[in-house]
């Protein structure tokens, strides 16, 4: 089985409610994520899955509820704090930096780690004065490890815009990994992939979870995948939580079957 056993709660979401104008996107959502586990959020389109993630990393400010991370409780998360606390995120419809190379995209993931100031960077030089060059090289080395891990060496310098969809998804993941996150939020990492790509991606996700012990919160439509790789599953429907538990429990949950898996009966 896996190297690191599932630990205690690392991220605890309490009674989150979010609405745009009159429209309710999330109503009173609560669930918890345990260290090292793979936690899936499923639900039909428009169920509020992405909104949930957006609340967690402070893109949206929920009107009610709180989020507890490693014992610290927040009403409003600010993206910067979240990032500093080690939460990384990939995006449903690619949010890569189109104008930049794969390498640079992943390098941005290291920005939090780069400390040298504006002047230091301006006067960066190969002669060993100042911190900038050294830092750049250190971080580059780390990023190269990720590049190897994701097997995208040949595309380092290619502008991501020109990469295939599958590869872009990997770069997206790479950018998140570059932050050395403790919790990794994956928003439909396999959407629009073919079987083979999906298998690769699942492998990467499990490896990450395994090798680095990264806790993973995953939104995915492909039930097969979800049931295979996740330890516990939250089910959302119309912004409400209708189920929570192990894959088997969820499979057995009547509401879930009605709302979601119903089609399969």
């Amino acid at each position, binding site marked *: 089985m896996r190297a690191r056993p599932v630990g205690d709660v690392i991220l605890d979401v309490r009674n989150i409610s979010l609405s745009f104008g009159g429209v309710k996107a999330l109503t009173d959502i609560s669930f918890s994520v345990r260290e090292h586990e793979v936690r899936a959020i499923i639900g039909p389109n428009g169920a509020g899955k992405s909104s949930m993630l957006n609340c967690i990393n402070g*893109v949206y400010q929920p009107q009610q509820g709180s989020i507890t991370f490693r014992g610290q409780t927040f009403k409003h998360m600010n*993206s910067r704090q979240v990032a500093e606390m080690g939460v990384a995120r990939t995006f449903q419809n690619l949010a890569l930096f189109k104008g930049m190379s794969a390498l640079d995209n992943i390098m941005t993931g290291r*920005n939090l780690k780069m400390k040298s100031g504006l002047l230091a960077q301006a*006067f*960066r030089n190969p002669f060993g004065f100042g911190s900038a060059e050294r830092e*750049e090289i250190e971080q*580059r080395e780390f990023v190269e490890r990720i590049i190897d891990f994701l097997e995208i060496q040949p595309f380092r310098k290619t502008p991501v815009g020109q990469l295939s969809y599958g590869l872009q998804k990997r770069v997206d993941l790479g950018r*998140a990994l570059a932050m050395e996150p403790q919790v990794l939020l994956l928003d439909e990492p396999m959407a629009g992939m073919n079987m083979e790509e999906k298998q690769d991606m699942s492998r990467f996700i499990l490896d990450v979870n395994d090798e680095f012990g990264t806790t993973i919160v995953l939104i995915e439509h492909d039930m097969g995948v979800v049931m295979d790789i996740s330890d516990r599953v939250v089910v959302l429907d119309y912004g409400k939580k209708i189920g929570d538990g192990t894959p088997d429990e969820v499979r057995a949950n009547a509401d879930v079957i009605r709302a979601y898996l119903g089609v399969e009966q």
Partner: protein
Amino acid sequence: MFYRENGQFKSSYRADLALFPIAQDRWAMLALAAIAFVGAPLLASDYAFRAVLIPFLILALAAIGLNVLVGYCGQISLGTGAFMAVGAYAAYNLQVRIEGMPLLLSLLGGGVAAAVLGVMFGIPSLRIRGLYLAVATLAAQFFVDWFTNRVAWVTHDSSSGSVSVQTLRILGHSFDTPAQRYLLCLALVIVFGLLAKNLVRGAIGREWMAMRDMDVAAAVIGIRPVYAKLTAFAVSSFIVGVAGALWGFVHLGAWEPAAFGIDKSFQLLFMIIIGGLGSIAGSFFGAAFIVLLPLLLNGIPRWLGLSMSTATSSHLEHMIFGALIVFFLIVEPHGLARLWSTARQKLRVWPFPH
């Protein structure tokens, strides 16, 4: 073929991170520098210096500054002229008010002043986006136009509000001949060009581009929009400010506020569009283009011996400018810089198609 990289292996990331990883480029750059520093001073005429090379260099510098903001950070500004003006007037005041103020310090001071204003007018960018911001930056333009005109202090109480600078001396060495002034500009442009290049290829540069390409994602990976945007505004206006100071001190020598009017702002914007958004080299291409095109347009008829009225040629100039801008936006949004790198790519793989 010309660009044969076989046998050039990069054994370290440092090598790969070098400014010009490919040997040919390094040589080309050295050659270029040699021409600029040695060739030009020997060959060029007064006219070439004063009317072509010096304005070209200064505008290129300003374009680099604007490119940091627009090309790299994606915050469009229509108030560049204002920041040039602030640079020029600040430098002027440092010169006339402080006895024995070193010229270089005043120039840098101009930059700092512009940077401060830049940050002030950058603050709205945290809330206002895109087109709204673009128009809002005009506020800077018109405010500074008025301020430099109205506040006598700015012009050292000169009767008409025009200012005029003394002879330029650095460390007791005075820069009178066009060649000397050219070299002064060249040196400054190269220094600031390199600094800018360092910034855009480093961490902060990546932050800027991240903001430009997808600000939400950028925030999520821990980039602070405030920091990224305001640094972009500061750096950009600093460089633009220095350029403005040079424009006033070296190119014009004496000027009225109109010298930094809204036309300048647009002219610079054209430069970076044509030269290449998000490219330092592009800034140079753009500046060269904008400086040379008018000369060509009213030169060509003369050299071909056919007489075209000055009015006609300047109307044509407008039209060709406009047409080219649209053309570039359609065909090559990355401007001359991209054309150049495509050409280079071709040379690298020549004779093979790719």
